[in-house]
């Protein structure tokens, strides 16, 4: 009785499509679906454009927005968040500096909340912004970029409605 030796497996084929092509196709399909769902509803990939968040986030940097983080708690001061515009393909990237109900002001570049100065270690460039005290509404957050060296009039900042906040930047 003689046993026939098994034919040499084609390793290149196994590496590409696996031992069982049908299962490989199923695995690929599941992977694609999971990736689409995660990147649309959980970790949204973004690419930073513009200079308003310098030096924390540089132009062209890839990052992710955690879209689930504010289901358990509200945005906190210091969080870098994404704010949706008409849709989710273009969003604003800003830092939360004022919380609902607070009074915010800038004096000679210094952030003041409810009449007290608030340190901002993430602001690295000199700033001389002035802004009279402004009351933040119950469903609003005051957001601003980290690059305060640019003229205040050119810098997009202001009150973001809670419903526009998509999530917190991950990295």
């Amino acid at each position: 009785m003689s046993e026939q030796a098994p034919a040499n497996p084609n390793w290149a084929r196994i590496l590409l499509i696996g031992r069982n092509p049908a299962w490989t196709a199923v695995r690929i399909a599941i992977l694609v679906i999971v990736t689409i769902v995660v990147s649309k509803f959980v970790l949204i990939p973004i690419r930073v454009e513009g200079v308003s968040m310098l030096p924390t986030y540089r132009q062209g940097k890839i990052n992710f927005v955690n879209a689930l983080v504010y289901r358990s708690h509200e945005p906190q001061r210091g969080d870098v968040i994404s704010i949706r515009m008409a849709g989710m393909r273009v969003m604003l990237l800003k830092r939360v500096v004022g919380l609902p109900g607070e009074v915010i002001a800038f004096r000679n570049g210094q952030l003041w909340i409810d009449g007290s100065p608030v340190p901002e270690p993430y602001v690295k460039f000199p700033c001389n912004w002035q802004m009279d005290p402004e009351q933040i509404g119950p469903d609003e957050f005051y957001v601003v970029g980290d690059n305060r060296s640019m003229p205040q009039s050119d810098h997009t900042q202001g009150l973001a409605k809670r419903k526009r906040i998509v999530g917190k930047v991950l990295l």
Partner: protein
Amino acid sequence: MKQWIVRAVLLGALAALGYWLWTIFFPNPEKVIRNRIQEVARLASFSSNEGALAKLSNAQKLSSCVADNVEIQVEFQRHSERIFSGRDDVLQACVAARNLAGGLTVEFPDVVVTLHPGKESATAEVTLRAQIQGERDYIVQELKIEFVKIGGEWLIRRAETVRTLQ
């Protein structure tokens, strides 16, 4: 058995073809408005080497996307506001912009269309992303555009800038 599968596949293909033809001859108003917005983006974009005749022609095509009594309200950096009223005003502004800027690329990456009851008017919330030739930064602005159906065509009746941050 095999014959049934072939018949089912053919029937499915025929249904898909029918649906495709239906959408070609009777397009969904939302899709027509989306196409109109992309047409506006294409016509609003221009390069630095656009000829004088092309400038006028494209500006005229762009102004044909708006209604005669259009009103466009633009707020610049929260400090100043400009209102363009009527098609002629829009045409002049388009020609002036093409003469002033070296080149411009306009895109509307986000478009949300809401049809009003009766399907004769609609509102589109869009994000405009524009880049002036030679500049590194993009201009990003949220807009609200109101469309009306006039003579079977969807035309812009009103457009205004929207503040993302208050």
